[in-house]
Structures are given as structure tokens and as C-alpha cells.
């Protein structure tokens, strides 16, 4: 049913992604799909990496560790953004199209008041992306 599953990954908060990572891996195994771990970086140094190249290395390492742990086919895909605080949703939607992902599995928070005004990143993806979107709420 699904041949390529995309999972957006925030390496600065990787600890909060456990549930979504497991769901994505389970689905990838079930459908024998490829799992693509997508990370967004800037050209400016960040809390995760000093350079975009370091970010690429870290994401690749993360993807490989995850794929090995869960026994799935996995790889990394990096998006470079000028202004990720604002351009994140657009970048992820574009990535889902570029990667031809047919399912996006994404960690998200339990909705609060501000989500009634501004959608969460996951909410925006569910509204706007062509791919199916599976939002995994935090604990």
C-alpha cells in the first residue's frame, strides 16, 4: 500500500520522537516500504550542528542507527532552509513531493489553544500535503 514513508526528524529533540519513530518503522516493515528520515537545517550554526555538512553527517548516522535498530530500509534526506521557524511546513510538503512519499508519519503535540489559531506543523501537513499523513501525538 505504501512504498516510501517520510518521517520528519528534529535532531535537537530526538528524545521526543520515540513513539513516531517506532510507528513509522512498524509501518515500513509491514508494507516493506523505504523509510526516509527528513531533517531541516540552516546555513547558520545551530544547536545540532556547526555546519550544514555536520548536520548531514549526523542525520545520516541517525537514519542508519534507526534503520538497523528497527530492521527497515532507511536513509536520510536534508532540507536546507533560510528561515526554518517559518518555512518548515512548506519545506516538508515540498520534500514529501520530491521524495514521492506516499505516507508521512509525524510526531506532534496534543492540541492546545494556539492550535485553534495556527495549526501545528503536522496539522498543516495533513491539510496541505498530497501524501497520507499519520500524526502521532506525544505522551
Amino acid at each position: 500500500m505504501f512504498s516510501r514513508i517520510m518521517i520528519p526528524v528534529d535532531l535537537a529533540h530526538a528524545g521526543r520522537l520515540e513513539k513516531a519513530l517506532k510507528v513509522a518503522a512498524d509501518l515500513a516493515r509491514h508494507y516493506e516500504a523505504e523509510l526516509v528520515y527528513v531533517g531541516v537545517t540552516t546555513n547558520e550554526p545551530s544547536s545540532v550542528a556547526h555546519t550544514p555538512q555536520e548536520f548531514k553527517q549526523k542525520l545520516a548516522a541517525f537514519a542508519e542507527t534507526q534503520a538497523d535498530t528497527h530492521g527497515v530500509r532507511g536513509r536520510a534526506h536534508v532540507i536546507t532552509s533560510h528561515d526554518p521557524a517559518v518555512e518548515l511546513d512548506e519545506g516538508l510538503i515540498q520534500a514529501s513531493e520530491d521524495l514521492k512519499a506516499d505516507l508521512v508519519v509525524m510526531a506532534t503535540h496534543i492540541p492546545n489553544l494556539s492550535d485553534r489559531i495556527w495549526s501545528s506543523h503536522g496539522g498543516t501537513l495533513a491539510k496541505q500535503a498530497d501524501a497520507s499523513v499519520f500524526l502521532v501525538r506525544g505522551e
Partner: protein
Amino acid sequence: MADTSDSQGIPEPEGTAGLIETDYEIGQDNVEGSLGPIGFDIHNPVFAISGLAVIAFVFYTLALPEQAGAAFSWLFTQVTQGFDWFFLGAANIFVLFCLLLIVTPLGSVRLGGADATPDYTYVGWFAMLFAAGMGIGLMFYGVSEPLTHFSTALGGTSVEEGARTDWAPLGAAAGSEAEAVRLGFAATIFHWGLHPWAIYAVVALSLALFTYNKGLPLTIRSAFYPIFGERVWGWVGHVIDTLAVFATLFGLATSLGLGATQANAGLYELFGIPVGETTEVILISAITGVALISVLRGLDGGVKILSELNMGLAALLLLFVLFVGPTVAILTGFVDYLWAYIEYLPALANPVGREDVNFMQGWTSFYWAWWISWSPFVGMFIARVSRGRTVREFLVCVLLIPSLVCVLWMAVFGGTAVQQVIRDGYTAAQDAELPIQLFRMLDALPLAGITSFIGIVLVIVFFVTSSDSGSLVIDTITAGGKVDAPVPQRVFWCIFEGAIAIVLLLSAGGLQSLQSMVISTGLPFTVVLLLMCWTIFRGLQQERRV
């Protein structure tokens, strides 16, 4: 696969670059959390100190207006008069330093690594650095400054008790209209040409170099790593960054105040909308609202689009005035004024032994302090959009091209106004209050209604581009160099800037207090900039030249 970055060091950016290995992790001093539904990620203590100190300043100005007014007036005089030589000397050093880098092999270092490619096209890049750098100032002073210097120069000198009491530049040009025009324009171009852009270029270059080539956070303190080492992440750095936030906030609020008064004056001229506090408050609120939308749309979706729109509108207005105004006089004037600038430059830039103290302290010294206090904001913004350029390309584009555009702008707008006085005897612009002078000049040209309207739109959009890019910059500094801090923080700073401008505009002498704060933060920041020249030199020496 193991994380190779630890065992092999930090991977270089695109191509070879002299990365600095540090244990400091960006955001390690930040406080992350949420206030209700609103998330935040702020640097401790830069965010708190900056925010609280600014609030304290606003309360002081409002609670004790007379005392504050006297204190700020004293401060203003002390700084512009006592340190005039320092501002002038330092600005000369910045120009020479930039020119030197252009011609030495260090100019071939590429920002972002030897193989980096530019993030923005020339048009987008140039539009953004220009809109952030001069914006409202050009609209505000484009007509009035050449007119003022022309008038004072023509008026000659006057001396009381051995000291000059006139405001003419240098030795004035009493009785010679032609020379008064040349001197007037030379003085204006001096204030808007190489020197201010060299100030911006120093800050922008140091930030771009230490961020994109050295891998340090995008904050002012990073440029001081070669001097302070790891201590730069402690209190030394906190002070530098806090100072940068002050300078940016006060500089922006001053600009917003100037922009509001000019937009209000224009709206009165055009639609008869009354000039007053109510209109100005509505204007600042509405424009801050537009800036908010721009901030929420981000660097590419908001700031860049508005900057390009502004460039287009400004070019249209410039071409209109050029062709409808005294075209031949403007074009010959452009060359003549440029030559006059070169001719008078050594005397105008001389920091000691000057007789024209009023001009030197009241104009030049104040301008230099103002540009310097704006430099963290404009510099960081320019740095953020300049990755991928070589140092030489960067300096030529940041230093020389904007200077030439400023000369052209002044030649067209100021030149038309001066020609109106000399040739037509039309003195409405000369006699008007400062914010209205642009509109009075346009009045004497055809289609005044349309051009004045475009003028107001330009003031407003320049206002928006300053406010939104300023919010981005302050947010980045107060988030410890993180460019992906939660968006509500930008919203906070954007509203905060607007609120400061409104509160101080409503208080007696508010704008003067702001200007005093602007130049007072400019003084310590001059030291910061001088040190930056040295750290840039050291930093560039470690880079591979392409």
C-alpha cells in the same frame, strides 16, 4: 554507523574553511519552555536584561519626563561633543580597513567556505541590504540635508568669542552659490556614502565570517572569539550582545518615530489627515501590524518580497523625478557632486583641529554614532543574506554600490530641490518643516498627487522592512544565535518595538530621548567595531583564498 563528526572533527562547510573548534553548544544557555500555549527559547540572561532595561528606560522617560529630558540632553551633548574626534577617527579607520581588504589577497576568501554558492541573486541581495540599511533615512533626509547644507554654506561663517556659531560645513562658501551647492552635496554624500556603509560592512563581514566560516553562533559576541576565547560565552559576551540589542531597539524605535511623523506629514499634504499624536499612533500600530505579517511570512516570504517591492517603487520615483525634474542639471550634478565629495573628503573626515564645530558635532558626529548604533542590526541582517560571496565581492557591493546609489538619490532629490531654489526661486521645500520637505519638492513637479502618494507608500514600506528585519535580528541575538527560535518571539519583539516608538512619541521629548540613547549606545559600540577590525583580519588570515 557511528557519529563520525566526533572522531574526525567538525566537517567543513562548503569547501575549505577555518572552523573554530569549541565545546560551546549553541543554545546551551537558553531557557526553553512555554507560557500557556506559546513556546519560547531564549538566551539567559541576554533576553531578560535587554527586555527589562528597555522597559525601565521607557518608565523612567514617562514617569520623570523633565528630569529624563535634561539627563538625555546632557548625555547627547557630552557624547557628540566630547567624543567627536573618536567617532570621526574610528569611521575613517573602518573605510580604510574595508578598502584595504578589497585590494589585498584576503579579499578572495569566500564567506561560507571555498566552494559556497550565494543564497540570493544580486537583485534580492542588494534590495534587502539597501532597504535595511538606509530606508527611511533616505526618504527623510534626501531633500532636506542637501538643502540645509547648501543654505548654511551660502550663509557663510559667523564667529562669537572666537568660536564658530554657524552650522556651515568647513569654511562655508559665502556669496558663491555654485560652491555652496558643491560643498552642500559633498557634506551630504559624506554622511551617506562610504563611511556609513563601511561601518555596516565591518559588522556584517565579521558576523558572516565567524558564523559561516568558523561555525560560531550568529551573535555579535562570536566575532570576539579570537580575543576572549571561551570566555566570550560568559559575561563579556552577554554585555556585548545586550549592547547590540539596546542599540537595535533604540535605533529602530527612532526610525519608526521619524517614519511616522513623515508619513503623517505626507498624509496631511495629500488627504488633509490631521497631523498629531492620534494619527501617528494609528500609523505606527497599522504599520507594526503589516510588519507582523511580514515577520510571520519569514525572510524569503516577507522581508525579501517587501524589500524588492520597495526597490522597484524607489527606482520608479527616482526615475520620475530625474526625468521630470531638471534632468541635465541633475546628471551633470551627479558627476560634479561626486567630484566635490572626493575633493572635500579629506577635510570633512579630519577628526581634529576643526573650526566648523557645530557641523562636525551636530551633524557628522551624530550621524556616525547613529550609523554605529544601527550597525548590529543592519550588519547582522546583511551577514545573513551574504553567504557565498567573496570578501571582495561583498565589500564592493556593500560599500561602493550603495554609496553610489545614495549619491544618485541625493543628486536627484536634493538636486531638484536645490535647483528649484536657485533657478525657479521656489523656496517652499526650503522653508518647510523637515518631514514635509520631500512632499513640497514633489509639489512643484507634475503629478504631485501620485508621486507624493508613492512617497508615503515608500516611507511606510521602508518602515515595515526595518521593523520586520529588526525583529528577526533582535530575536536571533536574544535566542543566543538560534535562527529557528519559536515564531511568537519575533512577534513579541515586533510589537515591543512598535510599543516603544508609540510610548516615547507620546511623551514630551520622547524622540530626543531615543536619539540620545541611540548615540550613547553608539559610543561603546565604536570600541566593539574597532576590535572587530582586528578579529576580522585574524580570522581571514586563517581562511583559504580562492
